[in-house]
């Protein structure tokens, strides 16, 4: 009946398993898919990313101005756009979007 009692004492001596988020933020893994970013200097605004995006989160227009817009609330952070980008101007930042 007291099989977990040793574990209870161990937990009392050890560190917390949780963090005081948002004051203490966990380090992201190197390959984490945090948030999508673009290098506008390389982008040719071809619109392939917008066409392939499974969540319709990207809008690209060439007229009147060249714009690339991401709706972060629609983005499912799947990286499919990064794979299909012919100029490799998209990349994934391992840090997740902060709560601001």
């Amino acid at each position: 009946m007291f099989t977990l009692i040793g574990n209870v004492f161990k937990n009392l001596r050890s560190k917390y398993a949780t963090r005081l988020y948002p004051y203490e933020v966990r380090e992201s893994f190197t390959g984490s898919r945090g948030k999508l970013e673009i290098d506008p200097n390389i982008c040719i605004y071809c619109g392939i990313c917008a066409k392939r995006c499974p969540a319709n989160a990207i809008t690209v227009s060439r007229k009147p101005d060249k714009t690339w817009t991401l709706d972060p609330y629609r983005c499912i952070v799947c990286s499919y756009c990064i794979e299909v980008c012919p100029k490799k101007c998209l990349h994934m930042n391992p840090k997740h979007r902060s709560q601001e």
Partner: protein
Amino acid sequence: MAKNTIIPFGPQHPVLPEPIQLRLVLDEERVVSAIPVVGYVHRGLEKLAEQKDFLQDTFLIERICGICSFIHSLTYSMGIESMMGLTPPPRAQYLRVIWSELHRMHSHLLAVGLLADAFGFENLFMQLWRTREHIMDAMEATTGARVMLGTCCPGGVRKDIDPELLKFILTTLVTVEKEMDEQMPVLLNDYSVKQRLCGVGILDKQVAYERGAVGPTARASGIAMDLRTHGYAAYGELDVEPMVETDGDCYARTKVRVRELYQSMNIVRKAIGQIPSGPINVPFKTKPDGEVIMRAEQPRGEVLYYLKGNGSDMLERLRVRTPTFANIPPVLAMLAGCELADVGVIVISIDPCISCTER
């Protein structure tokens, strides 16, 4: 003669992680029968899948379930590959096994944790979920995401695991095994736990077979049925044996999951030891055409996909039969004649996934 009372169990109930309602027909404290009411989390994903192309569907299909997402995309990809006559490279098959088994482990730890919560053992629940976090970390390190891995695609996988990360998975498994060795004896041998699980919600082998039980629910009733033994992906080279118990009660279902946790750990170790080098996907230019039925073993049991393509980018029909759907008739048989206080434990013992079921 006493009149029967009907009380609603769910859709919002402390033991239910997802919304399903069971209308319990009671004779005093004893359940006479249960009437399931589903439809609270229907999202129309099958219809949506017909409006997206078959490569975008891989990401959509993953979102059918928040627990066994990878195995959904794996089954879907295997179906598309079968229609297009593709054979993924051996390395991709091994990577699929590694991620599938990591998913099975985190799902089983979640399930037994929720069960511990259902019978009031909050400490054990927290411990099991803490252990589960190590596996989530292994998945995030190897794929970039904790649950929606997004790595499986028709023709193979999107991402490789480099040798350092394979070592990281092995180190994680050592930690997980050490922690599980402390927790699992509590789950299986504790007096109070046994009082709540042994002899509760018995599902006879014949009833399990007739009602079409799948996965750990069927295996706990003595049916040796595990699709991994059919050898899809790289399972054929990894000698998978179904974990079978014969008692058919909540304790047997828990025991099957615990044994499968250790089994999955061994499969991952073996897969990492045997993984061949080489490409991780095959290029293709064809479109899916024809009809196919594809099955795979999810943590909760057998999932069945029906896919119909017409040679275009869009699929004509996509239909999913999820394991929880198959396990609802057996759980109704378990509930008939049980005590009202045991309903929560019995329902959780099949590890219900309602978002899967309703899609």
